[in-house]
């Protein structure tokens, strides 16, 4: 977390606001939307760090440049920290980037602010029939499509195969009961080591909580027409929270109850070799391998178990969409670029890189890697957070789900108190 970055970006945004009211009064958003290429022959593309691998983007940009004589792709990689403010600044500028990757939980905010080009007419050109449902919804606003699914990833339980074997666990858990049973066995085998934890589970890991709540049939908010109503005080949400506590207590995790999975980096803890499991994405194993390179070979994965035996719990689908800003001067070129990227060729490369592709149902590229294979299977049951334009306020500000978890896990609040407080706080942010 680099708050000063956010602050600096925020300051930049305000400065820009200042500049905006001084000079840009004459900008007509309609003029920018016309399709003839007006730019300087450069297509600016912003993708996020850790997204499509360079082998893919190099080939893609080359193919695009070859097909469009005289056009140059200016490819830039952005950081997640402070991206919302940076995008605000970029989108309000006269010459915005032409293609931008936007996180799926941020997309509704931009889609609802009339700053993105309406892509409804191009859905069919962009392989629309195969779009990943969990991402598709986040790019839609009031019946129009503004975002094209790019890729998604979801969480699974990552575990140490060697430790499971030593503890006598032959098959990976396929239900909550078996999961808790595995924890008991691991503790019996390794419990004498005071640093051992059967499962590393930080107190504010709300993405995991989402799985448990959805698995109980609950949800965090309900859409009612255009507005949202928080449902954290529903029986399903309460049951999910209770299971979270049960898991924390059974596993004897030493993770902080008042912090999330990024503080400290959970993959680093797993890399330390004293944790038998954690809930994460396949990509995090690479981070763990920086601490201990030998850990990759000892690592396996299973889907987050459901309370119904044999099923896997629904998972939060984290990912990105691609959008074209309204202020982009090369709308037609940008659409061509999206068309190329959404085609089978590059989508299969995304799958090989370990991502669930956004515009292709062919996930065979993921099957080569056992961790990705488990992820791809679980992604079919992937779900998204409420598509409220104000959801960004929840993640970039004070997340009531995190406060609820800490208050309940530390015993500061009862289950009823914690859920009703968080429900009121969430309603204040996205409700109405």
């Amino acid at each position, binding site marked *: 977390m680099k708050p000063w970055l956010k602050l600096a970006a*925020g300051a930049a*945004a*305000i400065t820009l606001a200042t500049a905006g009211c001084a000079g840009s009064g004459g900008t007509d958003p309609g003029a920018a939307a016309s399709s003839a290429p007006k730019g300087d022959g450069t297509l600016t593309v912003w993708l996020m760090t850790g997204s499509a691998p360079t082998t893919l983007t190099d080939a893609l940009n080359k193919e695009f440049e070859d097909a469009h004589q005289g056009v140059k792709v200016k490819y830039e990689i952005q950081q997640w920290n402070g991206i919302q403010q940076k995008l*605000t600044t970029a989108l309000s500028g006269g010459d915005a980037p032409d293609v931008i990757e936007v996180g799926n939980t941020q997309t509704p905010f931009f889609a609802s602010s009339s700053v993105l080009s309406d892509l409804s007419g191009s859905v069919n050109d962009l392989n629309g029939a195969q779009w990943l449902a969990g991402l598709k919804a986040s790019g839609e606003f009031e019946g129009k499509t503004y975002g094209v699914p790019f890729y998604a990833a979801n969480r699974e339980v990552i575990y140490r195969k060697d430790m499971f074997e030593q503890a006598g666990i032959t098959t990976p858990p396929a239900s909550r009961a078996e999961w808790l049973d595995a924890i008991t066995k691991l503790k019996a085998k390794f419990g004498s080591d005071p640093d051992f934890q059967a499962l590393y589970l930080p107190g504010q890991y709300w993405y995991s909580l989402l799985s448990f709540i959805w698995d109980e049939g609950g949800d965090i908010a309900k859409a009612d027409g255009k507005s949202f109503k928080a449902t954290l005080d529903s029986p399903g949400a309460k049951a999910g929270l209770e299971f979270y506590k049960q898991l924390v207590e059974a596993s004897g995790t030493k993770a902080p109850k008042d912090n999330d999975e990024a503080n400290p980096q959970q993959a680093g803890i797993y890399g330390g070799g004293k944790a038998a499991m954690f809930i994460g994405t396949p990509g995090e194993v690479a981070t763990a391998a920086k601490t201990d390179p030998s850990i990759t070979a000892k690592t396996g994965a299973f889907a987050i178990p459901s309370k119904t035996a044999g099923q896997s719990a629904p998972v939060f689908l984290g990912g990105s969409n691609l959008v074209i800003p309204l202020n982009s001067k090369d709308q037609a070129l940008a659409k061509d670029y999206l068309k190329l990227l959404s085609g089978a060729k590059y989508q299969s490369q995304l799958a090989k890189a370990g991502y669930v592709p956004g515009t292709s149902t062919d996930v065979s590229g993921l099957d080569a890697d056992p961790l990705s294979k488990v992820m791809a299977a679980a992604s079919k049951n992937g779900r998204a957070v409420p598509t409220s334009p104000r959801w960004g306020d929840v993640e970039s*500000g004070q997340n009531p789900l995190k406060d609820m978890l800490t208050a309940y896990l530390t015993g500061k609040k009862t289950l009823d108190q914690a859920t009703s*407080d968080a429900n009121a*706080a969430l309603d204040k942010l996205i409700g109405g």
Partner: protein
Amino acid sequence: MPAGATPPASPRVSSPSPRKRLRIGERTVPYLLILPALVSILVLLGWPTLQLLGISLRKLDLRELVSGQMVWVGFDNYTTTLTDPQFWEITVRTLVFTTAIVVATLLVSLFLALLMRHLGPVIRIILQVTLVLAWATPVIATTTVFQWMFDQQYGILNKTLDRLGFHGFIGYSWFSSGTSTLTVIGLLILWQAVPFVTFTLYAGLLGAPKEHYEAAGIDGANPWQAFWAVSWPAIRPIMTMVTFLSVLWDFKVFAQVWAIRQGGPDGESTTLPIYLYLKGVAGSHFGTSAAVATLMLLVLILLTARYVQLLVRTKEGDLS
């Protein structure tokens, strides 16, 4: 040579008018000299402030920002903010928090400054170097160090307390309540604020003549009396200055508060700058954040009115 009848130098010497011109020149030169400073202050401070006031009367979300529309909403942003009970709760919290830190900073710094005067040169230099190092460490670096020290599981504080026999602190969460979180943040800000104030006060103490202390000693004054009779008058104007500077700085602290817990848990450590960020910048409601900023400016003006009054009234910058 009739032309030679007029000596070239004579008009300059004899005529009185150039001297007058010189006097006008003398009078305008100082104004010309401060003009660049004045212009830059107007451009860099005055103009943004006017813009801020203008934006606070507008609805300026991402949509308006991108389309360049001017949507005037009058005092709507102010009414929304002022009728938000959260705003008042946070204002009171911020004032209490600022007061506590300023008082603590001044007391600790005064103690250290007096201590420095009485320490031997070696110890004093060690103390001074330590203070400079604490001061020189970047804000976010210090914040990260504090976060780790107070960490629930791995923090050195809980481990030390456990070793000392306070076993209740194993796994104790310092960030589970607003008061506790604000105390940690307060300590962090104190840690960064003390060095500057200490050095400033120490400089003031050095200004107090040695003879005065000797005279006080001869008159039989005890250390307490000597402090009030000799040291205090020497540092009083500086004390006034650092008090108001500290109020200004501590009131608008953002980075440390945000980095520790984003104003949590349950928003209980949210101060006005955090409120501004959450209401305005995080959700791209720049009109609202401009209104909050204007209100903060008003609070600060109220708080520091006395200092400004002193500055304007007294000559030679004497603030005693």
